[in-house]
C-alpha cells in the first residue's frame, strides 16, 4: 500500500514537472542550421531566353500574413497561374503569430514554404543563418528575369532596405538582396478634421507643438462634443513593434541614433542626454495626451481609436489610418486627413518605414518557379491592379505612385498624396542593422513603459544601454 502510494506520488510529481517543458519538444531534433554557404546560385542554372512558362506544372507553397495586401494578392493568383502554369498553394496566418510560425519553420531547415512575406527587419534575423535566398543573382540573370520587371522602377530606398551584407552595423544597400519590397508603410500623422476644425487647431510642425496639441485635444475635445476623445494614439505594448513607427520616426527627426558604429563595434546610443530628453518628452506626451491603458496599445488599438473618433491624431503607419479613412470603414471615415508630422529641429522629415517584402527560402527545391512568382508579385501589372482594384496602397514602384488611376483613387483623402510625396524620399530604415534587433527593440519598449510608469528616464535608459552593450556590442 505504501509502495503504491509512493509510486503514485512520484508519478504525479514527475508528470506535473514534465508538463513544464513544452518548449523543449518544440525544438525538434538536431541543430537546424547550416554554416556552409555555396558561392554558386541556383539562378546560374537558368539559361536561354526568358519564358514565363518555364516551370509550367510546378506548385509553389507560400506562407502569408493576413493583411489587405495579401487579400489583393490572393484575389489575383489566377492571373499568375494562367500566365505561368504554376499553381500557388498558400497558408495565411494572423500577424500575432505569423512570425513565430515563419521563424520556427525556417529554423527547422525544412522547405515547407518556398516563398513568404517578411519585413526588412527580419532580413537581419533570417539572413545571417543562411535561411534566405540571395535574390541578386536572379535579378541579374536576364534568362530568369523578364525585361518588363524593370528593377529601376522601384523606389531605390525600398530596394536597398532589403539589401544587406549580413555584418552587424553595416549600412543597408550593400551585399545580398534578401527580399523584394512588395508593399510598404511610411509613418506620418493622421488627424480627425472635425475636431481640428471645431477647436481651431492646425497640424503640428514641431515636436513641442505636437505634445501641446495632444494635451489640448485631450483636455478640450470631450467638452466640445467629442466624448472620451484623447489627443494622440501611438503604440505602447511591450513589443518591438512599439518602437519602429511614430517613436523611431520622431527620434530620427531629432537626429538621434539607436547605436553608433565604430570599427565594426556597436555602442547603444539610446541613453545619450539628447535621447534621454526626447524619450522623457515622448512618455510625457503619452501621459498628457495619449490613450488610457497605453501599455497595451498595438497598431490595432491605435488605428481603431482613430476610426472610432476616440483619438484626435494617430502617429503611425499611413495605412493604419487609411484603412479607417476609406468610405464606410469607420465612424471617422471622410473626416481623416494626413500630414507628414512634426519636423526635427533642423527641419528633418526623416521617417522610419515598414516594408512588407517577399522572400525565398534558401532551402526551397523550386527556386526557379518561386522566382517567377516573386517576379510576378512585385511586377508592375499585378501591383497596379492591386492598388487600383484593391487596397494595396503605398506602391513600391514609382510608375504606380505616378499612375493617374492611383492618384484618382487616393486623391479624395485630404493630404494623403501630398504627405506621401513629401516624405517618400526621406523614408528609410532608421535602425542600425544587427541580428539582435528584436531583443533590443522589445527591451526598448519595456524601458519606455517603465519611464511612462514614472521611473527615471536616465537610469532606465542607462540600464537598457548596459544590457544591450553586452548582447549587441
Amino acid at each position, binding site marked *: 500500500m505504501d509502495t503504491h502510494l509512493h509510486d503514485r506520488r512520484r508519478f*504525479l510529481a514527475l508528470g*506535473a514537472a514534465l508538463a513544464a517543458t513544452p518548449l523543449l519538444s518544440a*525544438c525538434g531534433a538536431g541543430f537546424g542550421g547550416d554554416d556552409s554557404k555555396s558561392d554558386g546560385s541556383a539562378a546560374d542554372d537558368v539559361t536561354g531566353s526568358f519564358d514565363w512558362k518555364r516551370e509550367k506544372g510546378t506548385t509553389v507553397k507560400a506562407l502569408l500574413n493576413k493583411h489587405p495586401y495579401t487579400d489583393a494578392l490572393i484575389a489575383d493568383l489566377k492571373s499568375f497561374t494562367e500566365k505561368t502554369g504554376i499553381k500557388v498553394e498558400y497558408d495565411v496566418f494572423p500577424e500575432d503569430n505569423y512570425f513565430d510560425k515563419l521563424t520556427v519553420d525556417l529554423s527547422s531547415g525544412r522547405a515547407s514554404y518556398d516563398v513568404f512575406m517578411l519585413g526588412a527587419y527580419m532580413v537581419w534575423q533570417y539572413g545571417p543563418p543562411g535561411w534566405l535566398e540571395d535574390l541578386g543573382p536572379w535579378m541579374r540573370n536576364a534568362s530568369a528575369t523578364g525585361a518588363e520587371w524593370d528593377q529601376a522602377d522601384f523606389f531605390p530606398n525600398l530596394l536597398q532596405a532589403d539589401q544587406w551584407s549580413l555584418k552587424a552595423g553595416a549600412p543597408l544597400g550593400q551585399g545580398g538582396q534578401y527580399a523584394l519590397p512588395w508593399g510598404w508603410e511610411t509613418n506620418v500623422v493622421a488627424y480627425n478634421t472635425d475636431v481640428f476644425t471645431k477647436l481651431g487647431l492646425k497640424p503640428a510642425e514641431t515636436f513641442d507643438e505636437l505634445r501641446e496639441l495632444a494635451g489640448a485635444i485631450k483636455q478640450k475635445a470631450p467638452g466640445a462634443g467629442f466624448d472620451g476623445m484623447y489627443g494622440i494614439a501611438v503604440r505602447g505594448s511591450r513589443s518591438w513593434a512599439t518602437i519602429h513607427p511614430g517613436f523611431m520616426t520622431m527620434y530620427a527627426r531629432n537626429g538621434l541614433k539607436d547605436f553608433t558604429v565604430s570599427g565594426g563595434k556597436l555602442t547603444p546610443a539610446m541613453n545619450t542626454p539628447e535621447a534621454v530628453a526626447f524619450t522623457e518628452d515622448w512618455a510625457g506626451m503619452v501621459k498628457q495626451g495619449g490613450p488610457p491603458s497605453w501599455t497595451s496599445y498595438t497598431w490595432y488599438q491605435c488605428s481603431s481609436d482613430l476610426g472610432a473618433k476616440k483619438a484626435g491624431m494617430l502617429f503611425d503607419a499611413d495605412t493604419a489610418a487609411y484603412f479607417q479613412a476609406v468610405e464606410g470603414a469607420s465612424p471617422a471615415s471622410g473626416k481623416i486627413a494626413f500630414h507628414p508630422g512634426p519636423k526635427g529641429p533642423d527641419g528633418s522629415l526623416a521617417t522610419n518605414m515598414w516594408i512588407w517584402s517577399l522572400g525565398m527560402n534558401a532551402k526551397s527545391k523550386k527556386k526557379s518557379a518561386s522566382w517567377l512568382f516573386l517576379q510576378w508579385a512585385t511586377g508592375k501589372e499585378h501591383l497596379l491592379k492591386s492598388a487600383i482594384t484593391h487596397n494595396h496602397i503605398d506602391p513600391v514602384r514609382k510608375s504606380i505612385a505616378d499612375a493617374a488611376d492611383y492618384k484618382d483613387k487616393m486623391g479624395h483623402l485630404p493630404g494623403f498624396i501630398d504627405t506621401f510625396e513629401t516624405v517618400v524620399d526621406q523614408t528609410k530604415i532608421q535602425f542600425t542593422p544587427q541580428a539582435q534587433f528584436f531583443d533590443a527593440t522589445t527591451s526598448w519598449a519595456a524601458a519606455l513603459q517603465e519611464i511612462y510608469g514614472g521611473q527615471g528616464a536616465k537610469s532606465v535608459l542607462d540600464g537598457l544601454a548596459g544590457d544591450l552593450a553586452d548582447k549587441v556590442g
Partner: protein
Amino acid sequence: MGWRLALRPYVLIVPALLLTCGILYPFGLGLYYTLFDFSASKPQPDMVRFENYETVFTQEAFWNSAWVTVLYAVGAAAVETVLGVAVALLLHRSTIVGRILEKILILPLMIAPVIAAIIWKLMLQPSVGVVNYLLRPFGLGGVQWTDTPTGALLSSIAVDVWVYTPFVAILALAGLRSLPTSPFEAAAVDGAGWWYTFRRLTLPMLWPYVLVAVIFRFMDSLKVFDIIYALTEGGPGDSTVVLQIRAYLEAIRFQRYSFGISYTIVLWAVVYLAAMVLVKHLGKIQRKAAEVK
C-alpha cells in the same frame, strides 16, 4: 501458446513505453542543447558546458522573472483555493439554486485561458471596457487596470482566478460529497455548532482534496504563459515577465535556442521540486484525514 503468454506483458507496456520515449526524448535533447551556444546566428554551435545556466542565474532578469512567477503562482493558487472551497461549501447545500449554479460554474473552464485573457483585456480596457463602465457610478470609472506593475500582476491573477476557481470548487465539492456522514451525525447528536463541525470534521477530511487542487493549480500557475502574454505581454516594463514568457522570448523571438531552453529546464526543476514537496505533504494530510474518519 506459451510464448504468447510470455510476450503479453511486454506487448502491454509498448504504448506506455512509446509515450515515455515521446516525452523523454525531447526532454533529453533539450537538456543536451543547453550545453551548447545554439542560436540562429550560430547554427553550428560550440559546447559551452554549463555557461548558459551560469548566465541565467547571474542575470537580474532571471531573478525578477522568478520572483514574479512565485508571486503569481502563490497569489493565484491561494485565492482560487479559498474561493473554490467557499463556493463548494455553498453549493454543497443541495438547493435548486445550488444545482443550477453548479452547472453554470463550469462555464469558465470551457473557455481556453488565452481566449478568456483576450476577453478580459477588452473588458478591462479603461475607456471602452465594460468593467470601468460598471464601476463609473461608484466613482471608480478611471482605473488603469494593466498600466501599473501591481495592477498588471493583480489583473493577471484575477483572470486566472476567474478561469480556474471553478476547477477547485468542483474538486472540493466532489470531496465534500464523498465524506462519510456518520461523524457529522454524531457531532450533531452531541450538539456541535457549524463552526466547530467545519473546523474539526469537514476541513481535516476535506484537506486531501483541497491539496490535490492546490498541487494542480500551483504547478499550472508556475508554468503560466497564455493568460499573462495575452493580457500584458509581460509589461509594463518587465513587471509580468514570468519564466515561461522569458523562455519563449529567448528561444523563439530572439532565437537564442540553448539559452531559452535553459530557462525551461530551470523552470522544470522548480516545478519538480515544488511537486515533490507538495505531494509528500499530501501523503501526510491523507493519513491525518484517515485518522479523523
